[in-house]
């Protein structure tokens, strides 16, 4: 399940929902990305491309389901203006075994960071700057 929204989400509720998916579930792995308040960051705004974002996330989920034995997947990504400590993204993966759950969770985050059309703008002491893409993120996505 893919959700792109401005509202916050409840990681506990989302993990519980996937944990109850089926009696075949033996492992649920999750990742929560937060706004890091370092270097005097006061806020971060996430812009996205409505429509393409959902399509890309659905394609990434389909790729993960093709590569690993997954019972359920949840990806929630927020957009809009967020403050340090706010949640940005949630990935939850349910599988029969932990190996597939861990791997698919990391894969989903790595591909999301390089293929889903979101852009971060940081605010620091009145200045607004668009964040540059990191080559490290490309390297992490290319490992898979």
């Amino acid at each position, binding site marked *: 399940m893919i959700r792109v929204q401005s509202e916050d989400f409840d990681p506990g509720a989302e993990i519980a929902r996937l944990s109850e998916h089926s009696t075949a579930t033996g492992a649920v792995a999750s990742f929560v990305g937060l706004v890091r308040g370092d270097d005097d960051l006061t806020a971060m705004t996430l812009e*996205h*491309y409505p429509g*393409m974002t959902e*399509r890309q996330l659905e394609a990434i989920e389909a790729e993960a389901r093709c590569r690993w034995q997954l019972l359920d997947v949840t990806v929630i990504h927020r957009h809009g203006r967020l403050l340090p400590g706010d949640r940005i993204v949630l990935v939850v993966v349910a599988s029969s075994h932990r190996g597939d759950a861990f791997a698919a969770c990391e894969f989903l985050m790595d591909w999301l960071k390089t293929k889903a*059309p979101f*852009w971060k703008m940081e605010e620091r002491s009145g200045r607004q700057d668009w964040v540059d*893409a990191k080559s490290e993120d490309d390297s992490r996505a290319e490992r898979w």
Partner: protein
Amino acid sequence: MKILYFAWLRSKIGCGEEELTPPVGTATVGQIMAWLATRSPGHAEAFAKPALIRAAINQDFATPDQPVGPNDELAFFPPVTGG
């Protein structure tokens, strides 16, 4: 043709969406970028370094040599930075 701009391209150009008809012979993503760069100082600044820009046709990633039709939705944006 509907053309969309995101992130710093939108900031530099000053709008997020334009409905434009590229001149005859302007058929690919790369050719349209070169033509857009001539439209205003903001466009020129946004498209000054084409290698930094990513494109999508109808919401799928596209390369500079891909052809674009009059009914397509074409989008330009920087490398993505979500997550």
